[in-house]
């Protein structure tokens, strides 16, 4: 379970998060959405124990992220937005490193690594330097690393970045399967149709505040919006956005008109 209470984070004058509160129970896939700079990654970093909140509290699996960060880190799997890896290591080495950091038995690491690499069709690339792999292949390694130690809570920050359609489909199945096994999943993404299909609940953040929180179907019906995308736009887009786009396009030469 993830429990966030009145979480606030400021960077100097900038308020990245303000009084954010929510609870994600075990077995739920919760979409965590927001425009760029809304505070999604900040929240996730706080939940991973790598960033201290300015005020408020957050606990993961019953452990406070500030007072018991180690207990939190032992229980989470994290796929960061950047997905950067140590480029001079191989997938095998990288996963062995992750296993060692989680103090797993080497035999268990080897067994789970083999299974993950097979699932993601990375067996042939297991001993290649990570910087020689494609972005999608590296992302699969990052996802494998997040799931290697069988975490209770999984924090996905744009997990489908760089993945092909088949791999993305597989990840969506995995996410659902994890929730069915009682894992708590917080899923941050800008791909709203995926979130709509995958997450039974969504939290929408705008400028550091929660502007919507509820079961996906209920939110759509109560707001009378057909899709999550239209709901999202109604909550987070500025009113004059369409006018701004029109004005912007006006600065381009109209090739069609010129031809005519």
């Amino acid at each position, binding site marked *: 379970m993830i429990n966030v209470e009145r979480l606030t984070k400021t960077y100097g004058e900038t308020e990245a998060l303000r009084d954010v509160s929510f609870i994600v129970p075990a077995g739920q896939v919760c979409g965590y959405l927001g425009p760029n700079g809304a505070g999604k990654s900040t929240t996730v970093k706080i939940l991973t124990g790598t960033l201290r909140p300015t005020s408020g509290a957050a606990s993961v699996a019953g452990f406070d992220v500030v007072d018991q960060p180690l207990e939190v880190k032992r229980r989470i799997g*994290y796929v960061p937005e950047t997905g950067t890896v140590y480029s001079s290591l191989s997938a095998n080495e990288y996963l062995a490193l992750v296993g060692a950091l989680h103090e797993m038995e080497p035999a268990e690491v080897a067994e789970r690594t083999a299974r993950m690499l097979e699932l993601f069709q990375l067996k042939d690339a297991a001993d290649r330097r990570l910087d020689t792999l494609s972005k999608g292949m590296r992302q699969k390694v990052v996802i494998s690393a997040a799931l290697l130690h069988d975490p209770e809570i999984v924090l996905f920050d744009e997990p489908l970045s760089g993945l092909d359609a088949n791999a993305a489909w597989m990840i969506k199945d995995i996410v659902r399967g994890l929730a069915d096994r009682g894992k708590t999943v917080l899923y941050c993404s800008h791909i709203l149709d995926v979130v709509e299909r995958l997450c039974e609940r969504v939290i929408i953040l705008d400028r550091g505040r929660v502007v919507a929180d509820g079961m996906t179907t209920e939110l759509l019906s109560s707001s009378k919006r057909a899709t999550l995308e239209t709901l999202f736009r109604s909550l987070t887009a500025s009113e004059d956005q369409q006018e701004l786009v029109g004005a912007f396009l006006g600065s381009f030469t109209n090739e069609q008109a010129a031809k005519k």
Partner: protein
Amino acid sequence: MSARTDAPDTTLTDRVLRRLGVRPRPFRALLRAYVLMDFRSQQFGRATAAKPKDLITPLFWVVGQYLLLSFITSAVLFARVSAFFFALVHLGVSMLVIGTSLVVEFNEVVLDAEDLNVVGHQPVPLRTYSAARLTNLLGYVLMMTAALNLFPAIVGLGLRDTGWAYLPAYVAAALVGNLAVVGVLLLLYTTLMSGRPSDAAREVLAWTQTILIMIAFYGGQLVLRDGQDRLEMAAYNSPGWLEYLPPAWLAHFVDGASSGAAWWIPGAGVLFNAAVWALVMTRVSALYGRVQPGGAAWQRATLPRLREPGALGGTWARLLTRSRQERAAFWLCSTMLGRDQDLRMRSWPSLGMALALVLLGLFMGQLGDPFVSRNMANVVLPIAALYLLAYPLPAIIHNLNFSRDHAASWLLWSAPVADCFAFTEGLRKAVTYKILLPLVVALFVVFALVWRDPLHALLHMAAGWLVVVGAGHAAQIGIMRRFPFSAPASRGAITGGVALFGGAVSATAMSLAAVHYFAVRSPAGFAAYFAALAALVLALRIAARHVVQQKFAAAESYE
């Protein structure tokens, strides 16, 4: 179609740039971006966990240190030596420091493959990238030149044998000398890099750098060994070979400037620089053309399999470490030292000092057995070499903060690392056992052969080993503030951050060397000293455990 073309040339600079094959607008934009990045660099703050408001950009640290260096040398030499010697020392130091700084930060200041990741897809010719990079580098060199020569240029005016012409002559000599050093080094490196596969070429560069530092240290030893009046004597009876060094040519010009001496020397220097820099421009452009985004194609793609699937490191790693996390750190550090060429280039030169002293002792016949010889001149070098082993550890451990893969450190920050001290122990042990131990063994062999007494050599190097371990713990206290490889390698941050701390550690070690000199005179004295040294190492270890835990707890985040 609305593709842009460059605006017509409006200024002389634009026309000159076009003549050189450089597009003015992108050139200016890139240059502005590089300069802004230099001055806004936050990496030093990240590496030192400083708060944003307390940040001093790495460039200012370096400039400050160079100003301090030139102030001290000016103060030491003023009124003791002639104008020639005064100019010789300062021009030599300036050229050496700028040359080594360029070598150490080569990838940050000259050829950065990341550039093409960021701007490679933009419609900018390679020659324009190179011109912007080199102009930025030129600004960097000029700033360092100013810092290293400000005091010598002003203080030198007060020397008895100088006149008003000293100032312009000195400034001209410093500019010509430093630009020539940088130009020649660039030409050397870029020629090597384009002529061989990258890995091999960079191995060569790393050794070139080590040898350069060693050569520099030979020169430095002449100054270090200057007791009482020897500095003055050396200044007035300088060895003949000095005349063959370019700083001496420039110093002669500075010395004779008041009497209307040969201005053809800087004139020739300007022509030389123009030729060298034109060649450099061509070489760097060609190199940028060869560098592909990511640069991965240069590396060996397939790595050896793990000996035991799921486990890191072999028998040695298991024997030397106490926990899985410590082993992970040991393995990560060893692997990065083995595979990260930048890291190796930055790390190896620091080993040169101790080696240089031993070689100097061998060549000068001054590598006496301190347990036997009472002649100070005979035993200073072997003892100093021992204590100079303290320097590489802080330098290398500091280097471990930086990596091109710094963004990947999220893994370490979000991992449940229970004992941060154990993690840093893994790093320290990797550097100590993988790099320093072979050096200590090599020195033991040299001393055992030269002294014909393996026991004395063993005792000598045992003390050296304690120095190494102690310096490692000191580095844990003073340098390790966060996870390794978590700060980007930025200009000035690498050389700027460690100089003061490394200097303090080296100074402490050299003070211990003085105690060592007296302690070896009797077995009891040496035993007592050895025990005290061991106690000091133990105390440092206890302090390191405490400090590391505190610092890691205070470090907030990887971004």
